């Protein structure tokens, strides 16, 4: 183990800003993208459902 | 509808059109980014040299980006007959024109101001110099839109106006370029940017009063 305490871990030997800046933004991007896709999917599904039920009602 | 209502309706309309063309808002910005990034490719990668030319290059890039988007300021409205309808509207044409210029700045000028610090980093500018760069652009880009509108109106309906407009506006842009790039340079070389910036502000004030009037006159001529 290279780290003696959590504080040391988070300090990253003085490079905290750079290391966490990189990992943080990457993590954020990798989390946000699937979330946006989920939203996109549910929006499509909702509009499809609306269309279908409108069609059923008109029949 | 009062004057303000009409103004905001025009601004909203133009922003809506720009957003619909999706790419439009972003591409003016990208042009700025790409031009600013091309120079190091042409010139080489010595940091010292790059830092020296940074204010000039960034300002020229902003100027070109603003200029390129001038074509779409009136040309589309002219081609599809909207401009005719504007000229025939009981609302003063100057008001409608001011709205269009404001919308142009929001779409083509403001984004440049916001992205400029990032491009400045590419050229290794100091935080202070970056701040001056942003302020100079904040004063300068509306000036570019206002002056450019005159050029765009003058070349309207003139075939090949797309390139002619640059010929007309570039000379008018030169004072903005000199004071804008000068401000950043003065800051870098420790001379203080205040003088340049206040001259830029003075030019802007002048243009706000003068340019919409000149633009309106030019448009009326183009429609004859």
């Amino acid at each position, binding site marked *: 183990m290279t780290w003696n305490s959590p504080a040391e871990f988070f300090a990253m030997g003085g490079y905290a800003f750079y290391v966490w800046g990189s990992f943080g933004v990457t993590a954020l991007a990798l989390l946000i993208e699937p979330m946006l896709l989920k939203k996109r999917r549910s929006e499509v599904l909702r509009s499809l459902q609306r269309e279908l039920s409108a069609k059923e009602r008109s029949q | 509808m009062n004057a303000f209502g009409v103004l905001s*309706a025009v601004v*909203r309309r133009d922003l809506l059109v720009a957003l619909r063309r999706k790419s439009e808002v972003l591409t003016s910005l990208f042009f700025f980014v790409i031009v600013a990034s091309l120079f190091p490719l042409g010139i080489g990668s010595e940091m010292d040299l790059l830092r020296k030319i940074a204010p000039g290059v960034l300002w020229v890039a902003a100027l070109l980006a603003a200029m390129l988007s001038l074509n779409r300021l009136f040309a589309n409205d002219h081609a599809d007959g*909207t401009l005719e*309808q504007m000229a025939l509207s009981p*609302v*003063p044409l100057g008001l409608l024109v001011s709205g269009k210029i404001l919308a142009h700045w929001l779409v083509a000028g403001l984004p440049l101001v916001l992205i400029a610090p990032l491009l400045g980093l590419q050229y290794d500018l100091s935080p202070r110099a970056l701040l001056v760069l942003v302020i100079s652009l904040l004063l300068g880009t509306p000036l570019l839109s206002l002056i450019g509108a005159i050029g765009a109106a003058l070349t309207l309906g003139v075939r090949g106006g797309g390139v002619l407009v640059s010929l007309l506006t570039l000379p008018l842009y030169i004072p903005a370029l000199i004071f804008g790039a000068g401000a950043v340079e003065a800051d870098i070389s420790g001379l203080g940017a205040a003088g340049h910036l206040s001259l830029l502000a003075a030019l802007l004030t002048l243009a706000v009063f003068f340019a919409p009037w000149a633009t309106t006159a030019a448009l009326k001529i183009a429609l004859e």
Partner: protein
Amino acid sequence: MLTATDLACVRGDRRLFSGLGFTLEPGAWIYLTGENGSGKTSLLRILVGLSPAEAGEIRWQGSAIGRLGDEYRKAVTYLGHHNALKEELTARENLCTGAAMAGINLDAGRADALLGSVGLAGREELPARFLSQGQKRRVALARLLWSESPLWILDEPFVALDVAAVAWLAATLAGHLAAGGMAILTSHQEVLIEGSTMQTLRLAA
């Protein structure tokens, strides 16, 4: 009342017309005909004040239109060969922004109703570039429905319209004239507007 006296128009080295004059009273309309290139479009642009006449003058309610300015522009609605539509905006947005630029507030509900009456129900949200030639013309004509101007000047309004739309436009014009409005139209087809006074003005080539 619109009076034109002794109008002349020159394009290049060609004199399109001269000594042209007419008086248009409320409730009446002028049917402007003539061969291709006889100067109909040029005359209409002069009448609305977009281009200057070579000679002669135009008076609206007795005053020269150059001096009236905004007041005359408020009184006139003009539709040229072009439709003044933004291809990116939907039919509804085109209608609303068109009205706003003439200083008139048109909400979305009202706009939809107007689009419905020009036969574009269900196409309110289609960007104008997808509309067919005739559908574009219909959107352009919808401005007649919110216009409050007494004088309509229309350059070939029937072009690209199908039979139903032609009938609708004739009825709309009849209503406008019956309410004391005035109109000037050009067309290469025959136009029949019921219950109105028509003056024919023929430009010779």
